[in-house]
C-alpha cells in the first residue's frame, strides 16, 4: 500500500523536501500539521449530523473575504515564478470532452510529463525539481490510453467515474464503473454526488453514497465532486463538504466543470474552512480541488493564497491541493516566459497539450 499511495496522491517531486523555512520577521509561520508528503487517508466514519448541520455561512461576509484575499496578497518576480511552478505541480491536467480520442489524450499526457519548455526550465534553474503536473484526468474510456502514455512517469491517472457529470446513473452501475476504472489503472477517482440529496436534505443518503464510493475505490484517492454550482447556497456547500468528509472523501472538489457556475473563490473559502474544521475535529487532513473555469495564472495564485491563508503550507502540495484545469497551463507558461525573458509571451510559443 505505501508504494501505491506514494504514486497516488503523494509527492512525486524528486528533490528532498526542504525543512520549513526559518521564520522571518514579517512573515507568519505555519499553523496546523506539518504534512509534507502525504497525510494519513481519511478513513471516514459515521454521520455526525449535528456537526454537519451546525455550520453557519454568511454569504456576504464570505464574498468579502474572497474579494479581498487577492488584494491582500500577491507574489512578484521569482516568488511568482516559484508559486506558478507549484501551481503546475498541483494541477490535474484534464480533458473531459465528448470528442476525446486516444490521440488527444496521448498529447495531453506528453504535456503532463513536460509541462514547461525545456529552455524555460533551464532559464528558471528548476530542472532538478522534475516538475510535472499532479495528475491527468480523463473519462473512464480513455484511462488505459492515459495509463500507458504516462507509464514510468509517476503521474497518476484520475478517472471521472460514476456517471459523470450528472451522476444520476443507477447506483450499482456507478460503483461498477468506478471499479472498472481502477482495474484499468486509474489511481484516483473523481466522483460526483447526487446533488438532489443535498437539495432535499437527504444527508444520510449522501453519507451512504459517499461511504459506498469510498469502499469501492480501495486504495485509490477519492475526490468527491460537490457540483457546487448546483447546490444553490453556500450553506449547502458547507454541509455537503462536511458530510462528504465524514464519509471518507480524500479530497472535496468544487465542480465537474460542466455546471453553468464552476469553481469560484467564495465557494473555495467555504470549502477550505470546512476542511479546516474537519482537520481540527478529527486530525485528518482532507484535500481541496477547485475545478472548472480556472484559466488564468492569476486565478491559480489566488487559490494558492487561499490555501496558505486559510489552511497552511501542507495544503500547498499535490497531496492536498489539486487545480482541475485544461487551459490554465498555457497561461502559466506564458507568465513564466515573461519572468524569464522580460517579454510578454504568446500562447503559440508553448507546446499545446
Amino acid at each position, binding site marked *: 500500500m505505501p508504494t501505491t499511495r506514494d504514486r497516488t496522491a503523494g509527492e512525486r517531486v524528486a*528533490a528532498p523536501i526542504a525543512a520549513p523555512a526559518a521564520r*522571518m520577521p*514579517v512573515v*507568519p509561520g505555519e499553523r496546523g500539521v506539518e504534512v509534507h508528503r502525504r497525510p494519513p487517508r481519511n478513513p471516514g466514519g459515521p454521520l455526525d449530523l449535528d456537526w454537519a448541520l451546525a455550520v453557519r455561512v*454568511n454569504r*456576504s461576509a464570505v464574498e468579502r473575504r474572497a474579494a479581498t484575499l487577492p488584494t491582500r*496578497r500577491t507574489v512578484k518576480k*521569482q516568488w511568482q515564478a516559484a508559486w506558478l511552478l507549484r501551481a503546475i505541480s498541483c494541477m490535474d491536467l484534464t480533458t473531459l470532452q465528448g470528442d476525446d480520442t486516444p490521440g488527444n489524450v496521448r498529447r495531453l499526457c506528453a504535456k503532463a510529463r513536460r509541462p514547461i519548455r525545456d529552455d524555460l526550465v533551464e532559464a528558471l534553474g528548476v530542472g532538478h525539481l522534475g516538475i510535472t503536473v499532479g495528475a491527468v484526468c480523463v473519462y473512464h474510456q480513455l484511462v488505459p490510453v492515459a495509463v500507458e502514455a504516462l507509464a514510468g512517469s509517476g503521474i497518476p491517472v484520475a478517472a471521472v467515474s460514476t456517471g459523470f457529470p450528472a451522476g444520476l446513473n443507477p447506483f450499482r452501475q456507478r460503483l461498477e464503473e468506478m471499479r472498472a476504472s481502477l482495474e484499468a489503472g486509474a489511481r484516483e477517482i473523481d466522483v460526483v454526488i447526487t446533488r438532489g440529496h443535498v437539495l432535499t436534505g437527504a444527508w444520510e443518503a449522501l453519507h451512504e453514497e459517499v461511504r459506498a464510493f469510498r469502499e469501492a475505490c480501495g486504495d485509490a484517492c477519492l475526490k468527491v465532486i460537490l457540483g457546487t454550482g448546483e447546490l444553490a447556497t453556500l450553506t449547502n456547500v458547507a454541509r455537503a463538504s462536511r458530510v462528504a468528509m465524514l464519509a471518507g472523501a480524500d479530497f472535496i472538489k468544487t465542480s465537474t466543470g460542466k455546471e453553468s457556475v464552476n469553481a469560484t473563490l467564495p465557494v473555495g473559502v467555504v470549502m477550505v*474552512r470546512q476542511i479546516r474544521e474537519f482537520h481540527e475535529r478529527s486530525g485528518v487532513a482532507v484535500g481541496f480541488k477547485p475545478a472548472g473555469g480556472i484559466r488564468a495564472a492569476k486565478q491559480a495564485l489566488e487559490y494558492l493564497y487561499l490555501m496558505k491563508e486559510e489552511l497552511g503550507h501542507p495544503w500547498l502540495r499535490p497531496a492536498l491541493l489539486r487545480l482541475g484545469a485544461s487551459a490554465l497551463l498555457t497561461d502559466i507558461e506564458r507568465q513564466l516566459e515573461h519572468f524569464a525573458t522580460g517579454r510578454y509571451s504568446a500562447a503559440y510559443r508553448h507546446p499545446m497539450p
Partner: protein
Amino acid sequence: MNHPTGISEIFETMEYGPAPEAEQPALEWITRHGGEFGLYVGGRWVKGQDGRGFDVINPATRAKLARVVQAGPADVSAAVAAARAALPGWAALPGHARARHLYALARAVQKHARLLAVLESLDNGKSIRETRDIDIPLVARHFYHHAGWAQLLETEFAGHGPAGVVGQIIPWNFPLLMVAWKVAPALAAGCTVVLKPAEFTPLTALAFAELAHEAGLPAGVLNVITGDGESGKLLVDHPDVDKIAFTGSTEVGRHIRQATAGTGKKLSLELGGKSPFIVFEDADLDSVVEGVVDAIWFNQGQVCCAGSRLLVQEGVAAPLIGKLRARMEKLRVGSPLDKAVDMGAIVAPVQLERIRGLVEKGVEEGAQMWQPSWACPTDGYFYPPTLFTDVSPSATIAQVEIFGPVLVSMTFRTPAEAVALANNTPFGLAASVWTENINLALDIAPKIKAGVVWVNCTNLFDAAAGFGGYRESGFGREGGREGMWEYLKPEWETANAERGTRNEPAATVPRSEVPVPRSGQLPDIDRTPKLFIGGKQVRPDQTYSRRIVGPDGRVVGEVGEGNRKDVRNAVEAAHAAAGWAQATGHLRAQVLYYIAENLAPRSAEFAARLDAMIGGGVDAGRREVDAAIARLFTYAAWADKWDGAVHHTPVRGVTLAMNEPIGVVGVACPAEAPLLGFVSLVAPLVATGNTVVAIPSEAAPLAATDFYAVLETSDLPAGVINILTGSTDALAQVLAEHLDVDGVWYFGGSAGRAVEAASAGNMKRTWVEPHRRDWLDPRQGEGREFLRHATQVKNIWIPYGE
C-alpha cells in the same frame, strides 16, 4: 530580511516575497515642489507669514518627506478672508455649476488615484492596499455623490442656503478621505472652506488643493492651511467663521464645543469611539474572524469606529478566541508600500507610545495579553496585532479609546446583557452585530446607542449613508441627505434679526398692586400650580414661589420655583418613561390629537390667561391657542410619517437610515408666545419618541401650568412631558450640565453660551436658537427642521444573500 531568493527554495517554502509599490512618482511630486509646501489661500500658494514650519515624516522609515508651514494668526485670517470673499460668488452659482465643479474634483481624484494612494501611504504609514482599494476610491465616490447634491440642491433643499464660511479640521487617520467628507458637502451646499489637515499628514490635502486648482475651482472657495492644534484653535476661534466641522478626539471636540459656545457658529463633531463588536452564538465564526480583522486591524486600528470591544456570547468564546489567534498568526505587518501586508506603521511615535502604555496598563490590571509569535519590523513605528482576554468592563483598556491594533474581549450571556455591555460607554459611534438570526439582529441594532450599526459586516462606508455618533462620539452626520443639513441653514434665518436678551427682568411690583381680598368677601381659592413631574403635580423641592406679573403690573398668579433637585427628579421621571420611544407612531399621534381635543374646549380660558400674562387682547390670545391646536395636529400628523430612508449604498443589502429619538431632552421655551412656543418645541420631541423636561416662558408660565390639566386628561404616559417653572437660565444650566440628559433646546435668552459650554460635559446635542421666530408662521414655527433636531439618524447596514 532573510528571504530565500532562489526559485527552487521558494518552490519548497512557499513563502511570500516583497511586493513593493514604487514610491518614486510620489517622491518626485514632492521634489517638484522643492520639498516644501506653502499654504493654499485665495487660489494661490503663499508662504507662512511668520516663517514657522515643521517636517513631515514617513512613519514607516522615519525619513523626512517634506516641510510645511505652521499657520499663524495672520495666515488663518487671510484664509478666512479669502473664503469670505469667495462666498457670495460661490453661493450664487446655480447648483448645476457647483455640480460641474464637484464632478471635476471627482475626476481629478480618479485621474491621479495612484499618486494620491502612494502619497497617502508614505505620509500616514497605512498600507497601499487600503489607500488604493478603500481610501482613494471612497474619496472619488464622495465627490461624485455630492456633485449630485449640488445639482439637486435648489429643489431638494428648497428654502435653504449655505451655512457660510466653514472651518474644517481633520485627523490623520484617513487624511484624504476626511478631506472629501468635509469639503464635498460644504462645496455642494455653497459654503466656502478653510481646511486644516492634521500636522502628521498634510500632504494629500495639499495635493488635493493642487488638483482643485488645476480643475478650475474658483479662488478662495477652498483654502488649505497646515499646522498643528494651535492653528486649528485659531481657526475655531476666528470670529468670521460661520461653522466648524471637526473630526478627531473627544477631548479636542470638547474644547471646540466650549470655545464655540455662544458664538452662533454651527458645529458638527465626529469624535472618538470604543465601538462594540457583538458576536452571538449562531454567527458564522470564520466570517466573524475576518470581520474582526476588518474592524480592529484595519488602518492599524487607528479608526474612530474600530470595533475595539469584542463582546462574545459565552458558549462560543473559546472557539472564537482560538480562531482569532490562528488568524493573527497569519497577519503580515511591514512596509506600507508592500502590496502584500495587512498592516503598516503607526502614524507617529507619540501614538505608538500611547498604545504601548495602554497595553502595559492592561497587563498590569490583570487582563491576558496575546500577540502573534512573529516580530514587527523595527525600522519604523510598528505595533503588532494584540488581543486581550479576561477583560472586565472596569479595566482601563475596556473603557478608553486605544486607537491602535488592540482588541479587548469580554463575554456575555444573553442578548440583553450584550446590549448593556455595548452601551456601557460614554461613546456611541458604531457597532457590529454578528448573528445569522435576522430577528435578533434587527432587535439588537436599534437598542445600541451608536450612529452606525453594521450587521454581519464592519467598517463599511459610503457617501450615500450618513456617518456620525451618538453621545460623546459627537453629533452631526457626514454623507447622505442627512449630512447635507450640516452645511445648510434656512433662508428666513438670514432675514430675522438676532433676538436680544429674552428674560427682561420683570418690573418691580409695588406691593399695593397685589390683589388683596376685600374684607367681608370670601377669599379666592388659591390656584398656585406646582411642578409637573412624572405625571403628577408635585411641590417644588424647596417651597419658594415666584410671582407672575401681567403687563399692567398686576400679579396674575404665582408658580413654584423649581431648583436643581427638581431637575434631577424630572430627568429621572423622563428616563422612566423611555418606553415612549417604542410606542407606535400611531399611538403617539393619538395622544397628541387627544391633547389638542382637550385643549380646544378650553380655548377661551387659555386665551384669557394669555391676555392676562402678556396683553394684546383676548383675540390675540385666541389666535395663539388656535395655532397651538393646529400645531398639535401637525405633529400628530408627523408622528407616523417621520420616516427614515433606505440608502443606495454599493452593497447587496439595505442600509436603513432610521430616525431615532435623542432621548431625554431639556427644553427652555421662548418668552414670547407662552403657549404656542411651548407646544411648538415640546410637540415635535414627543411626536418622535423623546421624553421632555420643559421650562416654560419664565415671565409667562401660567399657560403651560394650566396645560397640566390638559395633559392629565389626554392619556399621556407619566414622565413623557415634565414641566418645571422657575428661573429659565438657572434650570437650563442644570439641564445642560446633567450627564444623563441627551439634548437641550434653548430658545433665546442670555444663557445660550453657558448652555452650549456646559453641554460639553457629555457632548449632549444642543439647539440654541439666537433668532427670534414668528411662531405663528408655520415656515418658522414647525416642520422638518424641528423633527430633524428631535431625532438622530442611525444607519444600519444589512447585507443579505444566502
